[in-house]
């Protein structure tokens, strides 16, 4: 392998891993947010609103880099892998086009509405927006994995004049390789989201930060579900392996009886070469599975201690639950390395080699420059983002900025201790959702400007639709 290929693959690996680390938590957390905010929509109970805002704040800080790294991913195909678009763009690009337009476009627009819609939209309408954000996010997983599934197990195409052409869109959309991976990833994201909620809640409970009710309620929601999601992810992983053992036998080396025959076939069609993936893919498989065993055991144990809130007194167990947050990330990253490195030396399995997928004429200097630019920026921004996540997580629900009423939002506010502001918000929101039809309220009313009465419970009830 020459330098250009190594650098290009390294660049892709770094950006893809960085992207997925944020995506996994986004997907898991938004689902918990849907549960929390729907509870608020149904009951009107301020505690659920507060819970949604706190976890929503963390969700958004995480989301920031999810978008950023996603942009790098999208344009990387054209920059470095134009061979892939040149030969297989007719099929590979289609699900990605649908993803950006149908799913992400809607998700991003709706997310803006959700962030700024607190106290301006009806409670139910605002909750519907979050549902749509979650649904579009989940549908993104499906479309992106449809594209990725084509790379692992190409279906619904023919080759005309050296270029791939789409013959069966339905086959592309119902590729078992993609569907099984989608299910596995969705369950895995729920594991990630669960462990995040558990880890932060356990930290507050262990440190006795004075938010016992708040974080016990979150813990009560996520902890019993965690072992279920771990088991589900494992089971769906098994289903996925069932398909991929037949579809990409070389991924499993000598463990698959078909590998030898497939390698012979590749050698006949593409000439002699190394058609087995690097050893690291096998290592990654193990590194994906081991953390899952710990995750399952630890959460089952912790669930047993939930009786009469016994868990809150188990400092070691709580500490372990916080530390365990690293486990889903380890599994997520390893799982992707297993899937993508295991496919090598193919970009599109049995159709296009990775070395032919690269942009022709690239020099290693060019790729090295972009690798350093993207790698350096992503690394720095990830550190800042995680520091911010840590900050908001530790400061607890009083420091939440998302959905804070303007009068609470003083520039000098720093950290917890805004008890008064919260009480005002509580009074105001009780009736906010239901107050009047609000249909004829002109937009100009959104500029309060007139009299600022910070304690007036009616101020957050301004609605524009």
């Amino acid at each position, binding site marked *: 392998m020459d330098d250009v290929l190594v650098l290009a693959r390294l660049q892709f690996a770094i950006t893809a891993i960085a992207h997925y680390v944020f995506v996994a938590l986004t997907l898991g957390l938004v689902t918990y947010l849907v549960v929390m905010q729907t509870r608020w929509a149904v009951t009107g109970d301020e505690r659920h609103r507060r819970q949604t805002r706190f976890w929503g704040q963390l969700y958004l800080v995480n989301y920031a880099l999810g978008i950023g790294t996603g*942009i790098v991913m999208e344009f990387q195909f054209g920059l470095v892998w134009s061979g892939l678009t040149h030969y297989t763009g007719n099929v590979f690009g289609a699900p990605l086009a649908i993803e*950006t337009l149908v799913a992400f476009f809607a998700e991003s627009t709706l997310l803006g509405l959700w*962030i*700024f819609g607190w106290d301006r939209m009806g409670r139910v309408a605002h909750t519907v927006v979050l549902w749509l954000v979650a649904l579009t996010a989940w549908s993104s997983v499906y479309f992106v994995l449809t594209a990725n599934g084509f790379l692992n197990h190409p279906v619904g195409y023919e080759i005309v004049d050296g270029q791939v052409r789409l013959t069966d869109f339905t086959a592309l959309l119902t590729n078992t390789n993609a569907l099984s991976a989608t299910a596995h990833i969705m369950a895995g994201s729920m594991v990630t989201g669960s462990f995040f909620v558990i880890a932060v809640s356990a930290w507050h409970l262990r440190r006795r930060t004075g938010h016992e009710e708040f974080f016990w309620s979150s813990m009560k929601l996520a902890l019993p579900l965690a072992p279920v999601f771990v088991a589900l992810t494992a089971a769906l992983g098994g289903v996925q392996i069932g398909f991929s053992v037949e579809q990409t036998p070389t991924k499993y080396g000598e463990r698959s009886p078909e590998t030898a025959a497939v390698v012979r076939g590749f050698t006949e069609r593409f000439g002699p070469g190394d058609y087995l993936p690097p050893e690291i893919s096998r290592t990654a498989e193990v590194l994906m599975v081991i953390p899952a065993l710990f995750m399952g055991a630890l959460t089952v144990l912790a669930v047993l201690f939930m009786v009469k809130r016994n868990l809150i007194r188990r400092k070691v167990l709580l500490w372990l639950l916080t530390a365990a947050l690293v486990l889903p990330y380890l599994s997520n990253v390893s799982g992707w390395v297993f899937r993508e490195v295991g496919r090598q030396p193919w970009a599109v399995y049995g159709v296009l080699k990775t070395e032919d997928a690269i942009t022709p004429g690239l020099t290693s200097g060019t790729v090295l420059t972009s690798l350093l630019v993207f790698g350096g920026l992503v690394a720095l921004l990830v550190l800042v983002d995680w520091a911010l996540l840590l900050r908001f997580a530790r400061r607890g629900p009083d420091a939440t900025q998302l959905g804070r009423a303007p009068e609470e939002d003083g520039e000098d506010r720093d950290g917890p201790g805004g008890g008064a502001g919260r009480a005002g918000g509580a009074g105001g929101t009780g009736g906010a959702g239901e107050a009047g039809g609000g249909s004829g309220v002109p937009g100009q009313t959104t500029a309060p400007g007139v009299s600022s009465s910070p304690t007036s419970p009616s101020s957050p009830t301004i609605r524009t639709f």
Partner: protein
Amino acid sequence: MWHIVWYTLLGLLLAGYLALDGITLGTGIVGRALARDEAERRTVAAATGPFFLGNEVWLIAAGGIVLGGFPGLESSVISGLYPLVVLAVGALLVREAATQFRRRVPGARWRGFWDGLVLLTCLLLALTWGALGGALLGTLPLRGGHLDIDPSLLLRPVPVLSALTAVAVFALHATVFLAVRAAGPLAERAVSAAGRLAPAAAGLAVLTAAAAVADGNARDGLLSPLPAALLLLAAVAALLLAPRLAAHGRRGLAPLASGFAALAPVLILGAAHYPQALVSGAGPHENLSVAEAAADPSTLGVVGPVVLFVLPVLLAFQAMQWWAFRGRTDDRSPAYF
């Protein structure tokens, strides 16, 4: 036939990106200078904040259309302009993070640092889009569907002037937007700033056009000069008109006028080259036509209807967002970003 639908769709998304994210870009460039104090800076943030995500996403969607519908453009333009695309993508990444980070920690130093990065990246992006438009207007070193751009091509008069025009137009667009969206003295200051920026932006646009006519390299790229010239005149008129509309309290019409000026380059490029997508300096046989750049009809005809079916819903979501936050903002409006 479907490639025309897809090309229109690409034009729509790119035009939407320039008109909408142009507000974000321009606010990043002039926002800090326009706002006198902390309260006004907050007002600026509140004015553009709700639309930030919904604006930039047009570019991501346009990228998706190129990826799925125009593999020919994907493998020529994006890899051919490697350094420029790396710069733009890096700037987008940093701007995204800086915008989302800047109000997370209270304190002037923290916000000042990220505001500075927002200013820098918005300026870089405006210059990049301008230079890109200027370069694509002329003939390109295109052979066999491959583009290998020498960086010096971007330093020719047309891309350089076009880059400066982009900065001025986005700045004007943002001041017009703030004039109709913000409340109080900030809005008045924005009106007068727009009045001063308009002649500069219009002058630069005319200068760019003059350079394009004088520079043989650029002139050869104008396959249909007349529609391009008419569109340019319309854009210049819109630039001069927008501040007046804002001054007369036409809250809807004023940003539409400056928005038209911001998106006009997409129309000009499309009109000047059609039915070609890119014009080669090596002769007409090396041109890349829209049909050649497009994906196979089997893909476009199957995926196209899906996209067209969903498009009204997407536009409705965008409209909903603009409707929800159509009022004027002040320093008490929510400013998350």
